[in-house]
């Protein structure tokens, strides 16, 4: 029972991270290694706005998300776009950005863990399992956010534009779709999701300057397994991986959980590189 609930929470966080990551890759072919930094900045932003500035939590959270989204857009416009011709170049510069963010956080806040306040402080007992209320809230919000995103992409015009670009960027341009603006929008959405994950998970996971590393490794794994560029694939893979990890953690020992996701990636790559839902196997 615990595995069911904790697994769901873990999967929800992973899903938020993975969906954003796969979105920006599917649309703009950008492997954004700074994605973890959005996660970190969401958590730290909320921390600063609540402890230092003293804003109420919900306002701090909203502002933090907006701030991170803006940061994402700026990074995309200024640093990524000029280097788009070289995939390696984009990778390297997003990596450098993540390092700068990490170092800035470290210099400003120090290496010790910070406390991001939780939205919900109570404990909930679900089916005989004690769960922190915040974790359940994370699950709920993640579901809503991803659901909203999915509807957005399927039902709105802007959403179709995004789909169009991800399928064929050239053709989309000929159709008059402003790809540059769409890239910015997608980056903003991607960053916001990551920041939201950071704000929700911050209270019960660790908040320290190098917190961006683990999420990016997990996001990579999930996106590969689910299929680069496929949102349903990422969600499914996120749950598969989240549950696999939780299961291994409970039954065996936590040392093996890291290997689960990475091994899954490796095996998937060897046997079915396109992932579960990946549309194309080569780029």
């Amino acid at each position: 029972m615990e595995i069911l609930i904790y697994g769901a929470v873990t999967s929800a966080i992973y899903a938020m991270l993975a969906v954003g990551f796969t979105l920006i890759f599917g649309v703009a072919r950008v492997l954004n290694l700074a994605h973890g930094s959005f996660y970190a900045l969401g958590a730290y932003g909320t921390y600063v706005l609540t402890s230092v500035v003293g804003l109420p939590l919900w306002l701090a959270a909203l502002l933090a998300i907006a701030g991170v989204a803006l940061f994402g857009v700026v990074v995309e416009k200024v640093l990524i776009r000029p280097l788009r011709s070289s995939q390696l170049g984009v990778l390297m510069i997003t990596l450098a950005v993540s390092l700068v963010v990490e170092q800035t956080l470290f210099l400003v806040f120090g290496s010790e863990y910070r406390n991001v306040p939780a939205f919900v402080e109570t404990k909930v007992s679900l089916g005989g399992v004690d769960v922190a209320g915040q974790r359940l809230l994370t699950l709920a919000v993640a579901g809503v956010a991803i659901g909203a995103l999915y509807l957005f992409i399927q039902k709105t015009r802007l959403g179709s534009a995004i789909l169009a670009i991800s399928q064929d960027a050239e053709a989309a341009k000929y159709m008059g779709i402003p790809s540059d603006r769409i890239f910015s929008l997608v980056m903003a959405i991607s960053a916001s999701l990551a920041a939201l994950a950071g704000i929700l998970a911050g209270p019960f996971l660790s908040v320290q300057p190098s917190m961006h590393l683990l999420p990016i490794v997990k996001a990579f794994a999930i996106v590969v397994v689910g299929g680069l560029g496929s949102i349903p694939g990422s969600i499914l893979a996120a749950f598969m991986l989240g549950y696999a990890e939780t299961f291994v953690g409970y039954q065996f020992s936590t040392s093996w959980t890291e290997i689960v996701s990475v091994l899954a990636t490796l095996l998937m790559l060897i046997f079915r590189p396109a992932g579960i839902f990946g549309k194309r196997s080569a780029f």
Partner: protein
Amino acid sequence: MKRLCLALTNWSHALLALPLVLAAFAAGAQEKPIKIGVPTAVQLQVGRDTLTAIKMAVDEINKKGGLLGRKLEYVTADETENPETGISAIKKLVSDEKVDVLIGGYTSGVTLAQLPHIASSKTIYLGVGAASPSITAKVKNDYDNYKYIFRVGPINAAHQARALVDYISHFVIGELGYKKIAIVGENAKWVQDLVPVLSKGAKEVGADIRLTELFDTQTSDFSPLLAKVKSSGAQYMIVVLSHGSSDVFAKQWHDAQVPVPYGGIDVKSMDGDFFNRIGGKSISEVAANFAVRAPLTKKTIPFFDSFKKASPNYPVYTAFFAYDAVFLYADAVKRAGSFDTEKVIKEIEKTRLEGIVGEISFDEFHDVQTGPGKANLIFVQWQEKGERAVLYPKELRTGNFILPPWMRK
């Protein structure tokens, strides 16, 4: 091409002369200060406090005229928690800065990696942070090469294990009546050294060990672990934590309201602001410490007060030993009457210094001794409003044990 080679040769000859000229200048310079090299994790609290404490000691000695007429200076190099960086930090201090003595250390793995390099440089090393017995085992197995290594603190992992066993036997079982315990620790070298001694000792004093688990230092989600502890039927959880995420552990334990109180060795919990920075969620946790602001020796309270002036927080364990290390080095040099390494080592071996946590003295393998009047673990509990009360040993008790809020009737 030929001309180029010729030019290069001429330049090399010219440049070779330069060091000779510089050396001549240096010889004419004043009496050099004594340099203390501090390899430590500068980005962590343990590192910062090591440096603050050394600065305090150096300033005090310099005010009284220095050491044998020479001023003391210190220089630091970041060893992080990574052996590669640790080794290059030692090289920087020893070869580039040419320090006279090394005081520092934190991660046992890093210190172990640094040892051969320290030994080959024949520089005295006074460790203040790493607990693995393997470090001083080198002194035992190869005295001639490794005699430069001393551990001023903390007491090694085996001693710590025995101290924990005492706590379990007299307090957890003896006073609280909890026989069923769980042992949880991070998978670092010093813990791997400590847990077997702990398990054996605990069983001998009548504990029923329900669960022993070592988790990865990188772990950030402890819910599987905490759930396992709960379902194992343990009444008390003994923790052994240093590098891992004690903050997150405490928060998750608190938020899930795990009905098992915990305590043990938790380095991050030694930080004075630990309680506050996690919103008070470590309430009722018992953490081992080497000293609190109590008259353990004549120097304890003055040290705490001076430290608080120099730093916004109360000192962590490396500070006590770093401060004492500077003084014991100075004393040894005074007794030896010279800075000659061999002579100083002989004097350091004979050290009996009234330090901050107790009397500092070394066993035959250069390891700090424990026992009555010497360095010992004190068990301190986080109580309401971030107050700390000493629970064990009984002689030093300042308060009573409290249960976590959700376990009170």
